[in-house]
């Protein structure tokens, strides 16, 4: 069946089987490999993408369900050739070790800051509690999201 999505601002259409998972549609069909596949059982959260701006685990959504909707993956965070505040913050604060969970963590952080521009540490930890970091680098992930919040509020006041 034909599926059309707006992914990172670009419209893409493909003919897929209903059982194709959204993760594999993004990685295999559309060739965007920044979205990772981890546990494949809705636990680890590394496959997280934003569906109409809301974080979802793409291993637990069929591509056909995304028909007509918009998807943001890590590849879509960069704007006008510039890293987004969350990307800059993960870079600065060393918010990653192996990098496997990083795309998902950055997308969850992006969605959190959209909704709550000044989250407390507790609120950040709560927001990322559906995402596992296999390096256990949570301290710096939290710091990165805090730094991105500070960066964004400076941008607003500047």
């Amino acid at each position, binding site marked *: 069946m034909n599926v059309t999505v707006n992914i990172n601002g670009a419209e893409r259409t493909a003919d897929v089987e209903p059982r194709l998972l959204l993760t594999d549609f993004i990685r295999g069909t559309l060739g965007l490999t920044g979205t990772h596949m981890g546990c494949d059982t809705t636990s680890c959260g590394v496959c997280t993408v934003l569906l109409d701006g809301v974080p979802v685990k793409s291993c637990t959504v069929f591509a056909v*369900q995304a028909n007509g909707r918009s998807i943001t993956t890590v590849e879509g965070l960069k704007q006008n050739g510039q890293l987004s505040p969350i990307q800059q913050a993960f870079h600065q604060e060393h918010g990653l070790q192996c990098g496997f969970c990083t795309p998902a963590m950055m997308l969850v952080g992006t969605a959190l800051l959209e909704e709550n521009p000044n989250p407390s540490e507790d609120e950040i930890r709560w927001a990322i509690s559906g995402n596992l970091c296999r390096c256990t680098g949570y301290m710096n992930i939290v710091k990165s999201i805090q730094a991105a919040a500070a960066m964004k509020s400076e941008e607003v006041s500047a």
Partner: protein
Amino acid sequence: MYPSKFDYLAPTTIDEALGVLAEKGPEIKILAGGQSLVPMMKLRLANPPALLDINRLPGLDSIEDSNGHLSIGALVRHNHVVKSDAVKDANHTVATAAPWVSDPIVRNLGTVCGSLAHHDPEGDWASVMLATGADVVLRSRQGERVLPITDFFVDMFQTMCRPDELVTEVRVNKHTARGGGDYQKLERKVGDYATVGVATSLELADDGSIAHAGIALTSVYAHNLKVTEAEDLLRGSQPGTELFKEAAVIASAACDPADDHRGSAAYKRHVVGVFTERGLARSLEIAQGGQS
């Protein structure tokens, strides 16, 4: 992991959806949030020939405060309940339980009604509804049926929902100003099923005695267990620590937990007692106005 092949149907009107169910209901699984169904299909525990995706149906995604109950539509996600001010004031058991359901990302898709229709004995919502009282609204081409939650549930993974029916709504009782409720949950990590969950609900009469009591347990029996014996003990009595301890002893005795990777049966039974007492105390505190 891939499910078996299936046909995908995504109607845009309820009439169309009910027509599909009337015609080939037995072959169909209904896809709402999919956060239990899709993993089951991937593990090939469920192999439905067709999925009916109800996500494009209008009018099912709101929480409404009407006619003395809280109406939660079939497409209301757990996270919607977490953030809802209407829920916070209307039903304390529902409001307390919502942030404990799975993890924040799963809560963005998973639905309350889907959880009830799935009826996993480790699901949190079934206990909440059994404790506070709720009615499930089912629609088909034959019309609408409204079933009390106690009649809706049959056994684990089994409900009275017929193959031609769609759960469109759950109507949850509201707490009055003299009511309170709580959900206590022990989990190993965020997103895990409950090791033990206990839902409680109290309504006080004008003289301060207990007019209504609800207690239901998660993950410690073959299905979510309403502890009617403890509810009967509470109803009509003056609330207090000793009474709650007695109710906790009854709840501990009523459950039948299994030894597993989440804990020994004896440990879980102990936690049921602790949580029942704690949940009733918290419910009372809210009912007596000690609530923030």
